[in-house]
């Protein structure tokens, strides 16, 4: 529902349909064109937005239409993000801390690889869908514990000593008199993986 005046636009959004985060994100997208104030009404179910047009901005009716589309976009983005949060954390954490990465190029996927690699992901997602909720962690408890431990170590190293990748250690202290050739300058385990760059064709 919109109430449009020349320089201001009031929008009311049902927060049981659109999550507050999606409303805020959509509002942020328009912050180059309008000033925005977000409030909740007394009952809390309705989110009210007051959009004030900035100089040179598009017609507020157009902004209203675009805003409603953006609400859908942001809601979808949020769902996709939440559903895949653990799986993404798993991939990035493993990429950052593990050297044991095979060199397989991303060939067309097969049933075997997906099931063997992360059977929990599919099972949990299926269960989540059946229950109408978002999927839970896609990794087993042991692996998750390992990831937590590694993340904890990185955080624990704290200010002054936070150098998990060793980038703050001067060259000579790190390699001493035996200066490696430039090509072997990266840590060996990283090098091993870098060598195995996955080739990809579109």
């Amino acid at each position, binding site marked *: 529902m919109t109430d449009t005046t020349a320089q201001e636009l009031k929008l009311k959004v049902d927060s049981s349909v659109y999550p507050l985060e999606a409303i805020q994100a959509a509002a942020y997208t328009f912050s180059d064109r309008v000033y925005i104030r977000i409030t909740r009404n007394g009952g809390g179910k309705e989110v009210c937005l007051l959009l004030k047009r900035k100089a040179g901005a598009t017609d507020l009716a157009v902004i209203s239409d675009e805003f409603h589309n953006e609400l859908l976009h942001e809601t*979808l983005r949020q769902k996709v993000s939440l559903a895949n949060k653990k799986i993404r954390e798993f991939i990035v954490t493993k*990429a950052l801390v593990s050297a044991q990465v095979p060199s397989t190029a*991303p060939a067309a*996927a*097969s049933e075997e690889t997906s099931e063997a690699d992360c059977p929990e992901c599919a099972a949990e997602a299926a269960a989540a869908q059946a229950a109408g909720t978002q999927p839970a962690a896609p990794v087993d408890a042991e692996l998750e514990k390992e990831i937590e431990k590694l993340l904890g170590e990185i955080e624990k190293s704290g200010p002054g000593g936070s150098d998990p990748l060793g*980038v703050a250690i001067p060259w000579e202290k790190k390699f001493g008199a035996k200066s490696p050739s430039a090509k072997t300058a990266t840590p060996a385990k*990283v090098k091993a993986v*870098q060598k195995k760059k*996955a080739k990809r064709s579109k």
Partner: protein
Amino acid sequence: MSATPPVLDPARFDPVQTGFFRFRRLGQRFLITNDFGRYRLLGDADFQKFVAGKLDKESELYSLLARDGFIRDRMDFDAQIAGWRSRNSFLWQGPSLHVVVVTLRCNHRCLYCQSNAVAMAAGRETDMTQDTAKKVVDRIFESTSGAITIEFQGGEPLVNWPVVKYIVEYARKKNRKAKKNLWINLVSNLSLMDDAKFKFLFDHQVNFCTSLDGPADLHNKNRVFAGGNSHAQTVRWFKKIYRKTLRKMFRIEALLTVTRFSLPRHKEIVDQYVGLGCRGVFLRSLSPLGLAREVWDQIGYTADEFLDFYRKSFDYILEINRKKPFFEQTARIFLTKIMSDTDPNFLDIRSPCGAGIGQIAYNFDGGVYACDEGRMLSRMGDETFRLGSVSQASYKETVGHPIIKAISVASCLDNQTACSKCAYKPYCGICPVHCYAEHGDIMGRMPSNTLCRIHMGILDHIFTRLDDEKNERIFRKWIKQAKERTSYQRQ
């Protein structure tokens, strides 16, 4: 009625079938990308089926999406992890680019001078001493990066020739023991070049980089030189160095800076670069730093004006490619990320940016800055990005400085509200110094950020053109040539 058609009902999203993706509407198509940098352009119907997990599992599209990590229950973890590591390999390096400002003096007075160079008459107060130069080189060699590039900047570096010479010789000498992959670049207007200097630089395998803003009248309007014709001097030496280094590992490149005066002249500018035998052109927009900021009303432009220039130039370059290979450098950087599993390590467009962890800038007085842009800002009286001095702080203190941590956090796109959801996130990067100069805040505000708008406009154009197989073949040639000999790229 909606301005653009709605995507779909988000409730139809299938969390079992559909893996993580970001999306953006491009005309009648939807671009989807993921954390591994894979992309696919989908029509409206296919996009909706993909989101809802309703694609035909026997279809070619489904196989391609599965291969590229878009299908959640077909994820090839090992391959995607390897790809992610490869794309982010710069995280394990350390500062490879070391910008050394040997003087602030310059014999040009360019309208947009982002370094705020001082006049030649200013005397030697802003020339680096040999003692400071030695400390700078010693510090550079402490870097954990196995590949080092020393880049002379200014002012005009040739004004302080004895120190340039000293650094080249001392660095080469040190490297006999360190055995790093050492590259030395000279960024110069070439007006003070002579045969003796060139012979020394050639013998020591120094790369050359000069500024060329297009045809003579345009170049000379932008790059004011009281000592004569800047364009003539630049082109004369460019041709000579180009000939001499033609088959060498080191060579000469030219850089374009686009001012308001350049906007209507895209063809002439590109023709100038083609005519000189350049492999490509780098269509760089102005940064709001230094003198450029002061005269923005006269030489600046909006992001949309720049993008109009960029698109015309880009399409003209595509026409040229029907006869000979010739690339646009910003596009080539993005295309390398889009079409391969490598990152060209362009320090200004990566996440996190290269400040402090990919590059360090050393001022004439030994002052150390997180990046060259931070050093430029100091010329405007703002020392926010100063990390200390080569005489005082240790290497560890320098690279572990809180400012570098803050910049890394700010330029990590996962921390940016708009960028983290943007379809272009796998390919993009932001400059916190630019954000600071534009918004007064290193985090910036992307919806109104000029660089963000420019990057998005360029990427929109690239993906639109990439949707044509003929162009795709051209782009593959561009990125095949993109295997740079240095370990970084920057503007």
